[in-house]
C-alpha cells in the first residue's frame, strides 16, 4: 500500500474505490462484461455463468460501455447516508444521483458530478461518465464514476 506520508515529494495516490468497474484518464468509461456466447452485456462486471436464461455461456470479455446516456430518473441525498457510505466532507454536503440509460440497454446508477443537482437534469437529459473523488482515506483519494450533464450549466437558459 502507498504511504504518501513518508515521501513528501510523491503525489498522493489516486485509485478507484473499486477495481475494474471503470477506466480513468481523459475519456473514462464503465467496464462491463460481455458474454462471448450471446453478447449480453452486464454491469457491474461479472464472471461465471451468463444470466441470460437462454444462454449457456460461461466466458466473458471486458468491454467499455458507451460514455454517454440519457437520464432515466434522478434524485438526491439530503441526509447523510448510513455506513458503509463514507462522507467526503464534514459537515456533510448533499449530492445528487441519476439512473442513466445507456445505448447498450442497461440502466446504471451513479452520483451526479460535483456541483450538479436535481435542478440540472430531467428525464431524458444527456449525460456522460466522469471520474471524481468519492472520499479520501489512509490510502489516498478513492475515485468513482459519476454522471455529468453534457449541456453545461447555464446553456439551457435560452431554451
Amino acid at each position, binding site marked *: 500500500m502507498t504511504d504518501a506520508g513518508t515521501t513528501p515529494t510523491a503525489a498522493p495516490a489516486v485509485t478507484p474505490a473499486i477495481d475494474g468497474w471503470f477506466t480513468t484518464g481523459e475519456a473514462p468509461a464503465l467496464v462491463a462484461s460481455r458474454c462471448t456466447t450471446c453478447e449480453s452485456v*452486464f454491469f457491474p462486471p461479472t464472471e461465471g455463468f451468463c444470466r441470460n436464461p437462454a444462454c449457456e455461456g460461461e466466458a466473458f470479455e471486458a468491454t467499455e460501455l458507451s460514455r454517454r446516456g440519457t437520464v432515466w430518473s434522478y434524485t438526491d441525498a439530503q441526509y447523510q*447516508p448510513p*455506513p458503509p457510505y463514507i462522507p467526503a466532507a464534514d459537515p456533510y454536503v448533499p*449530492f445528487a444521483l441519476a439512473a442513466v440509460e445507456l445505448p447498450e440497454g442497461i440502466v446504471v446508477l451513479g452520483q451526479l458530478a460535483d456541483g450538479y443537482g436535481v435542478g440540472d437534469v430531467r428525464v431524458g437529459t444527456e449525460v456522460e461518465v466522469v471520474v471524481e473523488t468519492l472520499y479520501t482515506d489512509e490510502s489516498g483519494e478513492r475515485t*468513482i464514476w459519476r454522471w455529468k450533464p453534457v449541456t453545461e450549466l447555464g446553456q439551457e437558459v435560452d431554451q
Partner: protein
Amino acid sequence: VSRDVAVLGVGMHPWGKWGRSFVSYGVHAARAALADSGVAWEDVDFVVGGETVRNGYGGYVAGATFAQALGWNGARVATSYAACATGAQALDTARARILAGLCDVALVVGADTTPKGFLAPNAGERWDDPDWLRFRLLGMTNPGYFALYARRRMDLYGATQADFAEVKVKNARHGLHNPNARYRKEVSAEDVLNSSVVSDPLHLLDICATSDGAAAVVLTSMDYARRHGLRQGGRGPVRVRAVSTVTPTFPNTVIDMPLLSTDPSSSEPVETLTFKESIGAAAYEEAGIDPGDVSLAEVYDLSTALELDWIEDLALCKRGEAEHLLRAGDTTVGGRIPVNPSGGLACFGEAVPAQALAQVCEVTWQLRGQAEGRQVEDARVGITANQGLFGHGSSVILSV
C-alpha cells in the same frame, strides 16, 4: 379441484416502537389469530415463521422460535425469508402443504423489531454484495430508490408533490380508527409539503417509518373449515384464491433496490410486463379473477408515490392514470376502488417479515365486514401487493 384454502383466523400485535423482543409480538399475534379462528394451538400441525434478520439466531429460525414460545406441540415447522415479501412466501409454504394434503391447520407468523432511521446493511465489508456496495459506492439509500420512481412519475405523467401529499392525507384518514396502526392522526397536505425533503422529490412524510409489529394467520383446508364451520357467517370463510411469489423474467429492465443497474434489454426481446406488473398478473391468473372484480387493494406504500405505481401495476387503472383516481377520490374508502383502507405503511411503518401478513389480515377483516371505521362497503375480493429485495414478488388475492 378447488385450490382454495380457508383463512380461519387473523391477528396482529399493534405496530409501534415497543422496545421488546420480536418473539413477544409474534406470540401475541399468534394467540390472537388462534382465538379468532376458534382452533386450539394443539390442533395446529404446521407452523411457518417469517424470518427476521436483525434479531439473532432466534430470528433466523423464526418458525421454531414461535413454536417453542407457544409451547412445543410437535407440529412440523418452516421458516421463510423473502425480504418484504416474507409473509407471502410463508403463506404460500403453508398453503402448499395444506393443498398437498400433508396438513390441515397451519399457523403463519411474522414479527419484527426494527432500528431507527434508514435501514442500513448488516456490518462488515462485503465487496460482492450489491446491498453493501450501493451504500459504499453511491450513498444510495432505500428512499433514494423510491425517489427515482417518484420523479419519473412526475416527469412522465405530470404527477406533483401535492399528489403524493394527498396519498398521505388519505391513508392517514384511513388509519385513524385502526387499532393496530402506529400513527392515528390526521395529516394535512401542508404537513407533508412542509416536512424536510429526504430524497428529492420525496418529503419525510412521504416515506414510511420502520416499526415493531406482528401479524399471524391461521390457514386450513376448505374441508377442515367446513367440518369446524366456526362462526364464519352466511358467506363461509374468507378464502385464499391466489398467492403470487413470482420472480422477474430476464431482462429485468426497471432498476430494483438494491441493485446498481438493470439487465441489458438489447439481447432479448423485452417482456411486455414489468416485474411489478407480472406480480399482480400472476395472482389474477391463478385466482381466475379480473382486476375489474377487485373491491379493495392493500399495496406497499413504502412511499406515497409508490402507492400510485402499484395501482397501475395491479391493472386497477391504465399507466399514468393513478393520480386521476386519487384526485377523484376513487381510492378513498367510499370510492370506487379503495386503496390501503388499513392506512397502509403510512400509518403502520414497515415491520418487514410481518407486513405482507398484515395486508392479509386487513383484507380478511374487510371481507368479513369487521373493519370498523374504515369498512369498504360490500367488499367481496381483495388483493395485496408488495415486492421484496432481490426479486421477490408478493401478491395475495382473497375472496368470500
